[in-house]
């Protein structure tokens, strides 16, 4: 059906297998989500509010545990090893970092201190630390000019850059990026996605990003999954998805034949993938 799944089902970089998530022991949020990311790719998870995009990312990074969410079924494999029982600390050491939705910078630390905390898990010399820092400033020259201001006082775009830069300081091979466009001006969104692409190409960092902004996400991603009500309802190459009639209609807001009543809208409910 598509190149990504068929070419290497066995050896995906990140492999999420039929994951089910329940919050507070009662609220079923993910109903068996499976997806994979090949090494060096940018993969997007798309979908509306509450579809389970963030939950999917958090179930991979195991940050879910702190929010009373439990992975009740399924498994997550990163570079061929089960990682769902690890702590976030272990995951970061293995090269996977999440950039959380809403940036979550340390507001009372300066931009530079924010970046430095990102290297917490690495035991490196002062010189190497400085080198890593310069590298991040290379990608985000704006941050260099604001290095000594408190992160809480910087703009939304700068905070998003700080959050991504902070994740980079851990020297990851895989970044989980949650809603990078949230609350940002279109121009800044473009700028940030450009940098994501740059990082992907030059630093060989793989990305799994959750986005509501389908248009932009599909332009930069290699592959996409569409989530609806906690299930993957559609997947495919980004280009294919972008030209798919249904996707166009529901997520891109481009309709082919005039206005339609919502009563006629087709829901993708039945399709499931049974990989487990």
């Amino acid at each position, binding site marked *: 059906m598509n190149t990504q799944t068929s070419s290497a089902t066995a050896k995906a970089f990140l492999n999420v297998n039929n994951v089910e998530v329940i919050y507070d022991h009662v609220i079923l949020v993910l109903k068996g989500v499976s997806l994979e990311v090949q090494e060096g790719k940018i993969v997007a998870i798309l979908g509306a509010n509450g579809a389970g995009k963030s939950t999917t990312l958090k179930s991979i*990074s195991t*940050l879910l545990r*702190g*929010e*009373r969410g439990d992975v009740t079924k399924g498994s997550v494999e990163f570079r061929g090893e089960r990682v769902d029982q690890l*702590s*976030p*600390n272990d*995951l*970061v*050491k293995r090269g996977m*970092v*999440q*950039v*959380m939705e809403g940036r*979550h*910078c*340390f*507001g*009372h*630390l300066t931009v530079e*201190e*924010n970046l*430095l*905390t*990102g290297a*917490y*898990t690495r035991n490196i010399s002062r010189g190497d630390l400085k080198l890593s820092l310069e590298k991040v400033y290379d990608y985000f020259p704006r941050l260099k000019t604001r290095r000594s201001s*408190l992160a*809480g*006082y910087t703009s*939304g775009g700068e905070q998003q850059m700080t*959050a991504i830069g*902070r*994740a980079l*300081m*851990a020297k990851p091979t895989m970044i989980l990026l949650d809603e990078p466009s949230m609350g940002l001006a279109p121009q800044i969104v473009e700028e940030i996605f450009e940098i994501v692409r740059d990082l992907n190409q030059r630093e060989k960092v793989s990305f799994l990003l959750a986005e509501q902004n389908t248009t932009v996400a599909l332009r930069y991603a290699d592959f996409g999954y569409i989530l609806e009500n906690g299930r993957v309802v559609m997947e495919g190459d980004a280009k294919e998805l972008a030209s798919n009639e249904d996707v166009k209609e529901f997520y891109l807001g481009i309709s082919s034949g005039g206005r339609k009543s919502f009563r006629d809208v087709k829901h993708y409910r039945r399709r499931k993938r049974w990989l487990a």
Partner: protein
Amino acid sequence: MQFFLEVLLGGLLSGIMYSLVALGFVLIYKASGVFNFAQGAMVFFAALTAVGLHDMGLSLWLAVPLTMAIMIVLAVAIEKIVLRPLVNQAEITLFMVTIGLTFFIEGLAQAIWGASVRKLELGIEDVPLEFLLDNAGIAISQFDLVAAGIAFVLVAALAIFFSKTKVGRALRAVADDHQAALSIGIPLQQIWVIVWGVAGFVALVAGLLWGARNGVQFALTFVALKALPVLILGGFTSVPGAIVGGLIIGASEKLAEVFLGPYVGGGIEGWFPYVLALLFLLVRPEGLFGEKIIRRI
């Protein structure tokens, strides 16, 4: 004038003793957003343990490091048994837990060492410095000066620790945003053990100094209550704030007692700091040096 100076200096120096206790609160609040009500109990526990070990025949040089080791064990135990199961609970829950801890630690200390008042000799005499007495006519206790010196070193070390070291930065990061700290791989458990350990160390220093002055007894736990106005003045999140707050409280309560006291029949030293703190809350709720509440709109 000379009398005024003497009162002022005496007040400032006793204020430093308050600062030492307040420091412990600041540390834990800074790193975990928890107001540790048990800090006073920790001061009591540390002092009593050190004195108890000393009374058993150990030298102070041995008793104090041993007590520090016990404080670290306590920190690990608190993290494992109390804090870990309560990750991500509301602040008020954690606050209630520290109240429970207070009673537990107080009880534990007395169960092990008994409830009698013990005397602690640090070898620093609580007598006026002759040099100052002869030349300026001001009576300043040698003990107070040593305490001030110790406090100064402690604060300088903590300030450097928080701003320049990796662990210090991580502590501040955790204080700011637990989730984000987790997401970049800072292990919260480890951080909490460190911060409770450091707070235990500060409690030990404060306990030794207060114990040497007033005797090691249950009343040490009330010292923590005096730290409250200090914190409100200085700000809950600031190490320098704890020091300046302590100085202001110490000086103002002594000055008020001596100069205002006679007009209202005396005895205002006990409540004056609280009134001051209350007034201060109206003007600057985050304290002199507290972190400003940053809110994006």
